[in-house]
């Protein structure tokens, strides 16, 4: 029987048993590695007492308290004061009053989230725009010392962020860019442009030169051929590169925590500072983390075909 099985498939094709057991181990690993994420997601829907109960609660009554606490600041009030108030307005008001507190105002989460959006999209747009021109030049023209320049561009990304942050901190203090969105956009652009050049050069290398040459024989100028022929052909590559830049800027913490403190602070330095009474407000942290991670999950699924290229700076293509 085993003989018929082993000759039934191509010699390089693993046997059914091998496939099934491989699949089983991989799925078990995937489920275990997802557990921390499920846990933080679930914590967002717990009440603070549920979130710190022992044993940890796997089954619980979902509550909006985490999300309410994430977006509001609250003050403790006497029962008399709360009873004297009118009927609660909305779920969050009700949930807060049950803890003998009233909503004092909006928390900083929403503005920090918006900062993250502005800085991530701004720096991505700049990095990809600069990157696509440079990548085209490196791909198509003979540039003296091209390899050295490319290495120089890449090496800027190898610096430890804290090492770069010291002089940037001093420089921004001098020219008034500390704690501004513009300062962060410029900094993230500089970090991302190296990735953009390397990735986009790979994508443009794959577009046959003949396309532009044909267009130029038809009377297009080089610039026109670039805009009308090369850019549309590189659209997928540009989109993939942009998503990689977005993810970097969205996730970045070291520069953000050292160079921003108020106005321009992004979400990653803010989330760990969410505290309730007597320690971390874990449901609010869970809620904030969930909302912060959702865009990344969407991007990961969109990018799955280009991930390999992105994480190796285009060194490995498929």
């Amino acid at each position, binding site marked *: 029987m085993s003989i018929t099985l082993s000759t039934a498939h191509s010699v390089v094709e693993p046997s059914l048993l091998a496939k099934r057991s491989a*699949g089983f181990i*991989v799925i078990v690993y995937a489920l275990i590695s997802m557990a921390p994420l499920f846990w933080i997601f679930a914590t967002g829907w717990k009440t603070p007492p549920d979130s710190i109960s022992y044993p940890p609660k796997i089954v619980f009554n979902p509550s909006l308290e985490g999300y309410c606490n994430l977006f509001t600041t609250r003050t403790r009030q006497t029962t008399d004061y709360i009873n004297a108030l009118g009927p609660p307005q909305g779920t969050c008001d009700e949930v807060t009053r049950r803890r003998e507190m009233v909503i004092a105002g909006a928390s900083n989460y929403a503005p920090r989230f918006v900062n993250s959006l502005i800085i991530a999209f701004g720096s991505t747009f700049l990095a990809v725009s600069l990157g696509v021109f*440079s990548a085209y030049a490196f791909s198509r023209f003979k540039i003296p010392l091209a390899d050295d320049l490319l290495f120089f561009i890449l090496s800027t990304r190898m610096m*430890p962020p804290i090492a770069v942050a010291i*002089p940037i901190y001093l420089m921004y203090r001098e020219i008034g860019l500390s704690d501004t969105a513009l300062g962060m956009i410029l900094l993230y652009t500089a970090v991302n442009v190296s990735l953009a050049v390397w990735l986009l050069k790979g994508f443009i290398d794959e577009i046959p030169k003949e396309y532009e040459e044909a267009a130029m024989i038809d009377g297009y100028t080089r610039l026109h051929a670039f805009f009308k022929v090369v850019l549309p052909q590189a659209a997928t590559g540009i989109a993939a590169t942009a998503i990689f830049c977005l*993810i970097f800027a969205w996730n970045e913490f070291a520069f953000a925590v050292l160079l921003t403190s108020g106005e321009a602070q992004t979400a990653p330095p803010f989330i760990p500072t969410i505290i309730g009474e007597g320690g971390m407000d874990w449901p609010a*942290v869970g809620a904030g983390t969930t909302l912060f991670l959702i865009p990344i999950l969407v991007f990961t699924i969109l990018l*799955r075909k280009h991930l390999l290229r992105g994480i190796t700076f285009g060194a490995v293509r498929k």
Partner: protein
Amino acid sequence: MSTIDLLATRAVKATPPALSKAVRGLSDKTIAWIFIAPTIILLLAINIFPLVWTIYLSFTNYAANRPNRPVMNVGLKWYRDILGSPEVWAAMQATAHFVFWTILFQTLIGFGLAYLIDRKFKGHAFWTTIILIPMMLSPAVVGNFWKFLYQPQIGLFNYVISFFTGIEPSSFEMLGSVMLAPWAIVIVDTWMWTPYVMLICLAGLRSIPGYIYEAAEVDRASNWRQFWSITLPMALPFIMLAVLFRGIENFKMFDMVVLLTGGGPGSTTELASITLKRQAFEAYRTGYSSAFAIILFVAVFGLANIYVRTLNRVKQR
């Protein structure tokens, strides 16, 4: 629309619009420099100028919180101080421990997973995407929520360990114990970055052409033999690439560990970047920390050089 109309529209579209002579006259060389210049200028302003400034500061006694104090040249004092400082060597040791063990675990598990995924079982594409998720997340946010999982009484991690081993969940503190904290950060980094190594290894395994295995099968080479003489050597450049990348990244590690342990307990998990941050932004020893930054940068730059050479070799295959 008739064929002639279609042809006419196409002809109109294909005719390049008139451009001014100035633009038309641009030579390829000019265009090349116009295209590259903005990137280079930005990198000079945001990366190179600060780097040069750091080098300058590393020879001075400048302190960022006392900008009005007269700046004095101290020569190589900071470099000597750093290389002779037990605190720095402790940080280097913590970094080496972290880099070594994370790379070892990530390579073993990552390659193992890639090998299994390459058996191409049903649904492998879907599960691969699921496995990749942790590496896309923000390291800071990851560090923050693992701190929750590691809580001694209430955390999921301690609960699961006690569930399987029977050890009291409150009897060990992953982040509070001098013995366990260095392993706590290794576990989180391995959880987060194993997918990265897996993805690169998977590309390596898929680059091996099937006919080599067919030939080996004809020669009656055992599976064991095939693995050691075909699979591993042919995937090796990819594994090395992954190792170098992780090495560089983890040498610079800051965000995840800062949020998880803050360098503690004591200074057991104080990696080089964390020491640097303390000196630069808490003690405001700007000159000293600049010198430290330069030393770290030289080390990373050395790694980067090796990395680019390996990368080129992988590319040529």
